[in-house]
């Protein structure tokens, strides 16, 4: 009798839980270890879960008490300077169709719900008593034998398995420990997200943001929001609160912040913008949080995502993309967790958990939208790092907005003249044209 687990999953976030769900459905015996008191207790995101994959994992999730806050039905991208806001705004009835294409979530609630669905799947699986989710336990080490991963050490005890899926999140200490990621990852292509959850009376929130039922609103911000630091802001509507925050590049923070302006001051400054003041009026801060987040720059990714007996999923593999349209991390976690688990299931059928079989995961990822998009939009990631994008461009856009939308009792310039004047007030045509060409190619 083989009393080993087929798989041990490290981390009960979205990647780990999606892997667990898949393994339970495929009839494999697994142990998922989560260090938080419950799944979600340690997780922070903006956050929107994009795409429809949740409906494959938990069919008709909207009828299953799914702990999402609202579905995305209205989106806005806003350029800010110190006093103005110029937005691209899109609202469409097609967003209201199920399965929804974006879900606004609070991780502490969402992950706990997803874990409860995995528990149900375990009960219905061939191993209801042998597969389990163990919480409040920290995985201290990975067991290695002749270069092959054979299990974990947690709580001073050893647990053995044919395979281990590392879904430990962006601060991937174990991935580094076994040499699949460099021991030190510099801040150049990493960011920190800081966020407040701001509570409102539900009716006030729904009236202010024109929300019907469970419909929700997302707003991304560039310019003044990030206070001269590379990055941007976000605002998402929850059921009776807003998630408001910033994503700030670490190297740029090192260079642009200091004793008189610290990371949380940038968040306060963002909230002091006149547009934000109007949106936030009457709200009460009920939680402050922060977390490191990848930017989508592939240079920080682990060189290998599969080894003998081991696979890396979710943000532990830096699978995340901020292409300017959306920040996709949670859907990548879900997709990669599923693909890792499917690879483990195939390895079990083949009776071979060596890198030869497990490397199929890398091929599946490469063929999936994750790696296709990450490769396709590396230019966009780079483009968004251009200093002009979070400094002069928002200034030009708002200057133009002021000229275009202000009516005076004096002769009015034609629109191209207004645009040229706005460009020349903050930059020059050549710089803006170069940027437009770069943007046109990369986006």
């Amino acid at each position: 009798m083989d009393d080993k687990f087929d798989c041990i999953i490290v981390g009960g976030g979205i990647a780990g839980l999606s892997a667990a769900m898949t393994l339970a459905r495929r009839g494999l015996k697994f142990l998922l270890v989560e260090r938080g008191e419950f799944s979600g207790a340690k997780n922070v995101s903006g956050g929107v879960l994009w795409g429809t994959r949740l409906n494959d994992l938990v069919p008709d999730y909207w009828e299953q008490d799914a702990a999402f806050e609202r579905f995305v039905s209205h989106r806005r991208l806003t350029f800010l300077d110190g006093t103005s806001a110029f937005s691209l705004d899109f609202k469409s009835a097609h967003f209201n169709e199920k399965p929804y294409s974006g879900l606004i979530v609070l991780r502490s609630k969402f992950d706990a719900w997803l874990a409860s669905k995995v528990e149900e799947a375990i009960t219905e699986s061939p191993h209801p008593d042998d597969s389990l989710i163990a919480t409040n336990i920290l995985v201290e080490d990975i067991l290695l034998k002749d270069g092959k991963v054979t299990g974990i050490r947690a709580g001073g005890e050893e647990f053995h398995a044919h395979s281990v899926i590392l879904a430990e999140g962006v601060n991937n200490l174990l991935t580094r420990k076994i040499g699949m990621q460099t021991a030190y990852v510099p801040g150049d292509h990493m960011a920190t997200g800081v966020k407040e959850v701001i509570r409102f009376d539900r009716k006030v929130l729904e009236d202010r943001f024109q929300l019907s039922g469970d419909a929700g609103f997302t707003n991304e911000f560039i310019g003044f929001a990030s206070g001269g630091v590379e990055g941007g802001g976000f605002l998402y509507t929850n059921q009776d609160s807003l998630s408001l925050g910033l994503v700030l590049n670490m190297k740029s923070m090192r260079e642009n912040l200091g004793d008189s302006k610290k990371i949380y001051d940038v968040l306060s400054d963002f909230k002091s913008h006149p547009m934000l003041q109007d949106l936030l009026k009457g709200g009460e801060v009920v939680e402050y949080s922060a977390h490191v987040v990848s930017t989508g720059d592939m240079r920080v990714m682990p060189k290998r995502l599969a080894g003998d007996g081991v696979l890396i999923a979710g943000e532990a593999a830096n699978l995340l993309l901020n292409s300017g349209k959306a920040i996709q991390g949670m859907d990548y976690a879900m997709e990669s967790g599923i693909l890792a688990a499917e690879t483990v299931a195939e390895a079990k059928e083949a009776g071979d958990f060596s890198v030869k079989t497990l490397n199929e995961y890398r091929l599946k990822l490469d063929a999936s939208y994750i790696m296709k998009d990450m490769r396709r939009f590396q230019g966009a990631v780079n483009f968004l790092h251009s200093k002009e994008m979070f400094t002069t461009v928002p200034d030009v856009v708002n200057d133009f907005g002021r000229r275009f939308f202000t009516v005076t009792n004096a002769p009015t310039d034609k629109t191209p003249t207004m645009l040229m004047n706005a460009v020349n007030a903050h930059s020059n045509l050549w710089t803006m044209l170069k940027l437009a060409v770069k943007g046109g190619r990369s986006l």
Partner: protein
Amino acid sequence: MSRTSIAERLGKVRYVNQARTDAKPHILVDTAICNSGCPHQCTTYVCPANCYVKDEAGKVHFQFEDCIECGTCLYACDQGAVTWNYPDPEEGRGVAWIFG
């Protein structure tokens, strides 16, 4: 909305083992490195939980009790002063997010 101070913000965080006075530190900082020629001492302004502070003499001090496990210092410190680990669920500090 009035400006929220960092103390007020951290006051909203739910920490685990909050009552423990002898919690085991999960991050060790060799401040001798910070205080002997680090060109930026950036942890004192990039840490979202203000765990790294500079005194009047410009010396860096660290405390782990307010840490919200974000990981920023693990990357921001490029001088090798930060040894970062996850808190022990039983003996350490750390967060249990209400919303996340």
